[in-house]
């Protein structure tokens, strides 16, 4: 685990050593004109975020590179302005979450709940991401070039999730709006209990979840896919299938006997 600075260890200290109420921005970034490099090797989560905020909000620097991130958790969260951040390495849980505007590029892997509740902006991860990727996401583009874990885009409310590899089980669980584009295979329970939105899958689908149905691809769908693949310079698999909500479970009182069994 990340070393916690001494003040929080001696004074107000939580059992898991995550709380860092007294930390301050280390002011160690190397600034070069409009851009800066933060070496995170010896920094805690709080220090990295404070440094990012100092640079982006305080110094008005629009391009920051973080080196040696060490898979720390909760990095680059809650950034509510346009900026460009490159993380040279891997991040832990809750990476790049709660953002509105930043463009973030992670060259390594990330843990669970990547870009959770992102409002707008772009997050690109070059390798794999864990489960709950893009949870409750509301806007922007989230691109994972590798594979992702289970429940990708759970409660998704908008934006686009683009996965270069495979997704785990329950992809798009309770998804409300937005799109998911999966180039590889999708695990069991795809689109379970989704309310709306579209899921495009190029590979195999292990099984569909409750109230998820296949629909014909339209030229508009293809146009959207082409555009997204062009932006992120990814090879587009030729054939996609499209999955949407069957809308059978919208209301309690209108269920036919056959539909009722869906919820058992």
């Amino acid at each position, binding site marked *: 685990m990340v070393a916690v600075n001494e003040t929080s260890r001696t004074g107000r200290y939580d059992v898991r050593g995550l709380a860092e109420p007294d930390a301050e921005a280390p002011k160690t970034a190397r600034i070069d004109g409009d851009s800066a490099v933060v070496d995170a090797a010896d920094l805690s989560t709080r220090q990295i975020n404070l440094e990012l905020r100092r640079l982006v909000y305080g110094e008005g620097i629009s391009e920051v590179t973080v080196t040696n991130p060490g898979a720390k*958790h909760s990095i680059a969260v809650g950034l509510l302005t346009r900026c460009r951040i490159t993380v040279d390495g891997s991040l832990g849980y809750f990476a790049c*979450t709660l953002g509105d505007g930043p463009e973030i590029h992670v060259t390594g892997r990330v843990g669970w709940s990547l870009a959770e509740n992102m409002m707008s902006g772009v997050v690109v991860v070059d390798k794999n991401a864990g489960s709950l990727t893009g949870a409750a996401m509301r806007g922007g583009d989230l691109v994972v070039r590798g594979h992702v874990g289970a429940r990708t885009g759970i*409660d998704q409310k908008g934006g686009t999730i683009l996965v270069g590899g495979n997704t785990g089980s329950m992809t798009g669980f309770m998804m409300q709006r937005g799109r998911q584009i999966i180039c590889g295979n999708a695990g069991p329970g795809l689109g379970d209990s989704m309310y709306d939105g579209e899921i495009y899958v190029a590979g195999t689908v292990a099984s569909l979840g409750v109230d998820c149905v296949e629909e014909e691809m339209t030229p508009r769908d293809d146009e959207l896919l082409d555009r997204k693949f062009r932006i992120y310079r990814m090879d587009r698999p030729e054939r996609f299938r499209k999955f949407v909500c069957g809308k059978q479970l919208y209301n309690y009182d209108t269920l036919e006997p056959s539909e009722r069994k869906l919820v058992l």
Partner: protein
Amino acid sequence: MADETAPSENTVLGRSQIFTPEVVNDIHMKAELGRYRMRGGGIFKKIPHWDELVFLPGTLTRFVIEGYREKCETKTVLGGRFAKKPLELDIPVYITGMSFGALSLEAKMALAKGASMAGTATCSGEGGMIPPERDLSTKWYYQVIQSRYGFNPHHLMLADAVEFFIGQGCKVGMGGHLMGQKVTEQVAEMRSLPAGIDQRSPARHPDWLGPDDLSLKIQEVREATDYQVPIQLKLGAARVYDDVRMAAKCGPDVIYLDGAEGGTGAGPHIGTEETGIPLMAAIPEARRALEDVGLADEIDLVVAGGIRNGADIAKCIALGAKAVAIGSAALMALGSNKDVAGADYEGTFGVPASDFYHWHTGKDPAGITTQDPELRKRLNVDEAAVRVYNFLHTLTLEVQMLARACGKTDVHSLEPEDLNALTTEAAAMARVPLAGTKYIPGVTEEKTLTEIRDLLAKHIANDTGGNRDV
């Protein structure tokens, strides 16, 4: 020979206490509907309640504080553990989270205004922030709820405190409900849902599963809010001792416990009746848990569920709560469950106004638990706000009155020693003595057993010269 089935009072054997008329009707109704039944409000069945506790005010053993003249502090500070700006309330009671959707815009505004007048807080509830509510609230909790409907990091930055909903006492283990009639275009848009659906919110959070990830989620929100505001975890009271221990270890500033008595805007009747334990039993368990993990002085305890008056609040504080939140009672202060011009409760719902539990239907004659534009006009925001303020002020006066009578110059000085129980059940749950005795079920026996064990140990030690383990 007598005809034992003749139609006469003398031949009737009795009636079932199990298959009561309500139960029989319920079975008939379910046989038609083919689904569980929904309603608003809190628990119907009788459970041990605050009425079974009484205060032991000062007489000769302690002297009392003059009402109205001598100061009795009510200021309540929550979340000083890690937050740079703890939540400072003028009174030990605030308005709990009730969603826009379950409540009308006017009701949310009036609650916010009334709470601000009283110097206390309100909470967004599910479904996101509505700007008029935020504007009218001087202290405002923002909820991080499972569904994350309308959750917006910009709104998070406007919060004076952040509450993670993990459960509610009314329907522990379940997500929120909002029936189609109330999912209007506006409500649906705020939640990114199709309009008119029967909304069943998720019961689990989308981005964490257990306590280990919850610690990280708390870290994430603290990073996003720069450690400025308190983090509160709202738990439905179930396995309170273990849950509170785990919650405490996740690093929050405040833990909020919601007892089984708690109300809801809409929930399954069976869920409301059958989940959770009474607040009276939950508070001592929570205190014990916080003490056992060594955080009793660091983490503040807020409680809610079925709170009606200042005595209920004073009893919660005496058992160890720092503050109390109210939901249903606040709606009633607004004017819910009250006969208003143009309303026909009996004709529309088959119950008198005071029994009106049909908050889920969106047809509230008082214009509070509704989205209907015509019904909403019946609630005057300014007048309703004054009623809420009056009620909050009265609650505080009542708490002070009891605290002063118990010899306290600060309401937070109330303690378990100020209470007695009227029934053995209440004595066992609240862990205060049964009136007229020193008996606390469970505690007394435990103490006696320990004494016997110690005596026995000494005895054996004497007998064997200390050579045998006991």
